[in-house]
Structures are given as structure tokens and as C-alpha cells.
């Protein structure tokens, strides 16, 4: 499944605004430090990522997301998942 970086960022910005009350986060900013983005948000984000990618993530794939800190890292993570399942 091909996903452009731009479309991922566009989707993430929408999700962050609608779900987490975070407007236009800086792509390299540490989400936890800058916006108090925590584990609860991360789980919610994984649900949204599953919707964008169109498939369910495995527990192992979800656990990898725990290390993510920035929007750019989320993009890398999503691109990696899409490539693995392609």
C-alpha cells in the first residue's frame, strides 16, 4: 500500500487536532514534552493509524510504537508498516 509522506502528515494533523486538541504540531518536536502526549493518547493514535493503513496491527507492531516521540517518527513508523505489508 503506497502512502505519501504528505498525506500521512495531513491525516496526522487532522487526528491530532480532532482527537488530542493539538493544533499543527512541529514534526520534530517531542510530543510528550511539548503537548503532554502520553500512553493513553498513543493507544488512541494506534487505532487511528490502523484506520489509515487499512489493516490491524499486531501486538508486536503496537509495542514498537512505544518508542515514538515525534510526528516524523510516526510517519517513519507508518511508512515502515505499509512497506512490510505491501
Amino acid at each position, binding site marked *: 500500500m503506497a502512502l505519501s509522506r504528505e498525506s500521512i502528515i495531513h491525516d496526522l494533523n487532522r487526528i491530532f487536532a480532532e482527537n488530542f*486538541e493539538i493544533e499543527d504540531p512541529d514534526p520534530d518536536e517531542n510530543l510528550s514534552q511539548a503537548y*503532554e502526549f*502520553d*500512553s*493513553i*493518547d*498513543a*493507544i*488512541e493514535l*494506534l487505532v487511528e493509524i490502523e484506520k489509515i493503513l487499512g489493516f490491524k496491527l499486531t*501486538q508486536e507492531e*503496537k*509495542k514498537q510504537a*512505544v518508542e515514538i516521540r515525534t510526528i516524523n517518527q510516526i510517519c517513519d513508523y507508518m511508512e515502515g508498516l505499509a512497506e512490510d505489508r505491501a
Partner: protein
Amino acid sequence: MAEGSSAGQVLPGYGAVKPAFDIGVTIAAWIYYTLGYLLFFAPLYVAAALFASDRQEAFQRLNHRFYRIFFRLLLKITPGLSLEVPADIRAIRSAVVVSNHISYLDPVLLISLFPKHSTIVKGALFNIPFFGRMLKMSGYIPSSAEKNPDLVIRGMENLPRFFGTGGTLFIFPEGTRSRSREIRPFNKGAFKIAKRQNVPIQILFIRNTDRLYRPDRFWFDTCVENRITVERIGELLPETGASVSEQMARVRRQMERAGGNNHQNHCSNNSYGVL
């Protein structure tokens, strides 16, 4: 401004025996906590682990029974101690319960009120041998995913079913005890969960657990007039559509108001000494 807990006036006739009661009640509580668990509850937990169809709920109900008996024991053997919990609080279901936090007894007290419950616990506690295992088996959720990602993911994913079957998730938004009784800064977790799961927030206010088990003392403080109360001071319904920040501000206002009332009530009651 709310003030910290302080020693109350010793009950008439108990002056000479108070130290003995303090030590005796504390030892009795610890004996129940250790031997009572091993002799009476450990077999039930083993049975639940082996045979229960819903192991987490079975553990939660056993925890509830264990701590309900713990409080009954304390009420029985502690001169001057009483507990007031309105029936409508015990009837809370399918909600996030937030409360002020003034004593180690607070989580124990809330577990004793809600048979089907869960809570968010400091992540480090899950790594304590045996105790951590009990937390996991009870379905409690670590506050951080860094060391226990599986538990956090599973815990959060189970929440829709948990709330859908009447579960009560209690959380102390201050994260840790307030020794001064002032309401400390809130974490957002409780409010985010309530919003995402579309369940109400029930706001409770606990008083005087810190007078029974004081932060600066090992022994229970007995033989003083001490009424522990749990009051429902408000609720936030999901239909209001308030943001997480707005919800936090509202809950803080209500807790601070209740804390102020708490202070006034005690100041007007001269049997409580210098609270």
C-alpha cells in the same frame, strides 16, 4: 486554604491507653494484611486464577472483598473511628471516578467500595515481585507504557468492554498524595479516558483518611474522634462535550471548593482540635 492533617483530641478515658491502641490496631491491620491474605484469600485467588472465566474481574471482586473486610476490621477495633459513604456512591457503575488523594488508605478505600473496578497504578509497582503480579492479574493499568507496553495496550483496549459491563475506573488525577490537603496539579489521563470512552466522570472527595494513617507516622492514629467520609461532589456527563482542559478546570474548582468546606467544617467543630 486547606491545611494539613493534625492530631485530634484524644477521646475521654483513652489518654493512658492510646499508645497501646495505636500499636495494637496497626499490628492487627498488618496481621490481617499478611496472614489474613495467606490463610483466607490466597486459596481463593488461586482458584480464581485457575477456574474463573473472567480472571481479572474475579481478582477485582476478591480485592474488593479483602479490603472491605479490612475496613470493617479497622472500624471494629479503632476507638473513635467511623466511616460515612452514601449508598449512591457504592452504586456508581460504568464511570471514571476521580478523587482527591491524601493517604495511602485512599485506593484501598475505593477498592472496598467498587466490586468491579480498575485503576491506573505507577508503572514501577508492576515490577515488584508478587505485588506486581497481583496488579497485572487484577487488570490494573500501568501509568506509563515504557516498561509495560503490553499491559497498557491491553488495558486500554479492554476499556470499552470494562465500562460496557459496569466497571468503575478510579483515578487520582493528582497522581500522588497531597500532604497539605491542597489539590495538586492534575494529570490528564482520567479526563482523556472518560472523553474517549464516552463515560461520565464522577467526582469524589475523601476526608480524614490522613488522620487515621498519617503521612509522617507508622502507627495508626486511634482513640480520636475521626469520621472518614466519601462525598460525591459532582459529575461531568459526556454529553456536555467539554474539552479535557475544561473538564480538568471544573473538577479542580469543585475539589478546591470541597476542600475549603472541609476546612471550615473542621474549624467549626471544636472537638477536632487545631485542624
